[in-house]
């Protein structure tokens, strides 16, 4: 299968708002003269774990910045749960039910891990009794335990190892109770055990009803986790399918030639 640069998909479909819980149609993002995302379309099915793979610079982060509201796309439409949400700012997207983790995580250093998670549980209101009864803290602790931060939740982020920071990112995103969560390069720098632990957490989240999109530039950690994958390069989709199909796709292999392991 080969991709057409101008927007028809490898399987010749275009997507409509009800084709999945999250749908992007002909998404385009240009920065000055540079086209980072080139008429990309995809649909994410509810409660699936989708992999979004591509070499560095392929446009993965840009695509998701557009989708999650960090900045609006130059052109194209984003549908979430059937509604057009193109260009809605990030904090409103979170309220709609889409959260993400950040590669360059920057937790709040002035407070403990559990307090970081508590912030994510705070309502967007000026006057609230929330937090006064102690349930917010309870909930935050529960979430910390769920992601594996049970033993360190009263420490400050500065004292966490790399894997711990990642879990904190995950915990913060989970605390916003999203329906769809985007996880950005979660496996970077983790040992095999830590990868396994994280995989189990994400599968547990999926079992509880969440849809997950995992973005990464190499498939090593993803294979066991994802149901399906898209591969993009130079801002366009070059392959789509199960991990097996992707691995055997000639274009994907070419894209990764001499570069990452698959």
């Amino acid at each position, binding site marked *: 299968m080969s991709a057409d640069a101008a927007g028809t998909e490898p399987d010749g479909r275009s997507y409509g708002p009800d084709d999945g819980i999250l749908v992007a149609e002909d998404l385009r993002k240009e920065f000055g003269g540079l086209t980072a995302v080139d008429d990309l379309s995809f649909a994410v099915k509810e409660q699936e774990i989708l992999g979004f793979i591509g070499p560095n610079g392929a446009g993965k982060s840009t695509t998701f910045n557009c989708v999650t509201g960090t900045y609006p796309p130059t052109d194209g439409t984003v549908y979430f749960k059937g509604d057009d949400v193109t260009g809605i*700012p*990030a*904090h*409103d997207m*979170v*309220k709609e039910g889409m*959260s*993400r983790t*950040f590669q360059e995580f*920057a*937790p*709040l*250093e*002035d*407070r403990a891990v559990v*307090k970081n998670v*508590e*912030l*994510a549980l*705070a*309502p*967007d*209101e*000026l*006057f*609230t*009794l*929330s*937090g*006064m*009864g*102690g*349930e*917010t803290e*309870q*909930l935050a602790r*529960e*979430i910390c335990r*769920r992601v594996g931060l049970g033993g360190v939740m009263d420490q*400050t982020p*500065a004292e966490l190892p790399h894997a711990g920071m990642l879990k904190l990112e995950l915990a*913060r995103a*989970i*605390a*916003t*109770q*999203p*329906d769809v*969560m985007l996880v950005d390069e979660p496996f970077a720098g983790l040992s095999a055990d830590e990868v396994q632990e994280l995989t189990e957490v994400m599968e547990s*989240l999926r079992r*509880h*009803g*969440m849809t997950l999109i995992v973005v990464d530039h190499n498939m090593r950690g993803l294979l066991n986790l994802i149901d399906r994958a898209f591969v993009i390069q130079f801002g366009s989709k070059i392959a789509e399918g199960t991990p097996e199909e992707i691995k055997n796709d000639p274009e994907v292999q070419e894209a990764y030639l001499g570069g990452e392991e698959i």
Partner: protein
Amino acid sequence: MATETPLEGDVDRRRRRAVVEKLLLRDLALRHRLGILGVGLLGLVPLLAQPRELNQFTSVLYLMMFAISWDVVSGYTGQLSFGHAFFFALGGYGTSVTVNQHLLPLAGDLGLTLGPVGTVLVILGGIVGGTLVAALGGVLIGVPALRLDGPYLSLVTLIAPLLLYQSLIIFSESLPVLAPGGLGGTSGLLNAPPSFVGIGELNTAVTVDQQWVGAVARYYISFLALLIVLAVTYGVTRSAAGSVFTAIREDEDAVRSVGMNPAKFKIFAFVLSAAIGGFAAAVWMHAGPNAAPNTENLFGSGRINLSINVIVVAIIGGMGTIVGSIVGALFFAFADAVVGGLVPNLKPLPTFLLGMLALVFLPRGVVPELTRFGRRLLAWRRGEVDRLLERDRSPSTLKRTAEKYREEIEEIVGGESR
């Protein structure tokens, strides 16, 4: 919902019960109990002090409130204000104009003679007016502040009181509709507004015949204002909104990524800060010693002194803690009094110098340092050796705010590292 929650049962009822329990002072940390003790002690001051000293103490109460006002926006959300006198002046002039140029003439037109109760009502009306004017000022600064960073924001906050000062001169004779009697220019409004208590001068609500009684009454009225300010700021900063404020100071993007819009909170912080400052200034005009609506009082000498003092007081006491402002004000006033006794000609330099030294040696501020010291003391007494040995590596609020300011400067100045 994708995640299960342990939120079962009637959440609201549990919250209400929790608030009530807090109000009844059960289950409070030691430092909170100490804080309440401290405030209680403040309430007992009139029993211990002479009338003249009492007046000085009363002034300190206002310095506390002003510093709290600064801390609410600058200490908590990290939006550094360098001209907070803007809000104090709005409050002080606001109440004076409301009372003298609107409410009293209105009473006159309606043919009312105001006894003590009437005068108090008028005064309260003035205080409300002053607070509202200051709050409006908070909006005026808070909205543009969203678009400005670091030093640009500081410049705007520095200019605001200067512009206000000039306006007082420009409109000294009359400001149509809002202040038909004018704003008094540099010497201030000629007629001070009525005070709550006085000894037989015209213009008071309640007349007493002894200096001492008047001084005590003034102290307690000011103390009541402090309690109100404390209640309001405590309520806000200890709620979930309070942790959002400090989160904004640390990292606004983090706040957005968890679904909250920082703009709303930032403006609110300015408005709240302005209202508190204006309220304190307004009460001062009616209850304080040396209460006169003029620029020397409300801006400080040189148009900037009061703005600078509140910054020093709040930082010395501990940025981002409400109690810090109280302690800082006490220290500052004490230092000022001592210095004033020793080298009166050199004021305000030695106190300022002491302030700078305190910043260098106690960068976290008195209250946080004392809290840390207290914890280590407790750990030592309980034999928790490892707690004693652990060092608090997290940087102070001041340091983190300075770091963020530095990043903002570098973004503006641009260029590579020098």
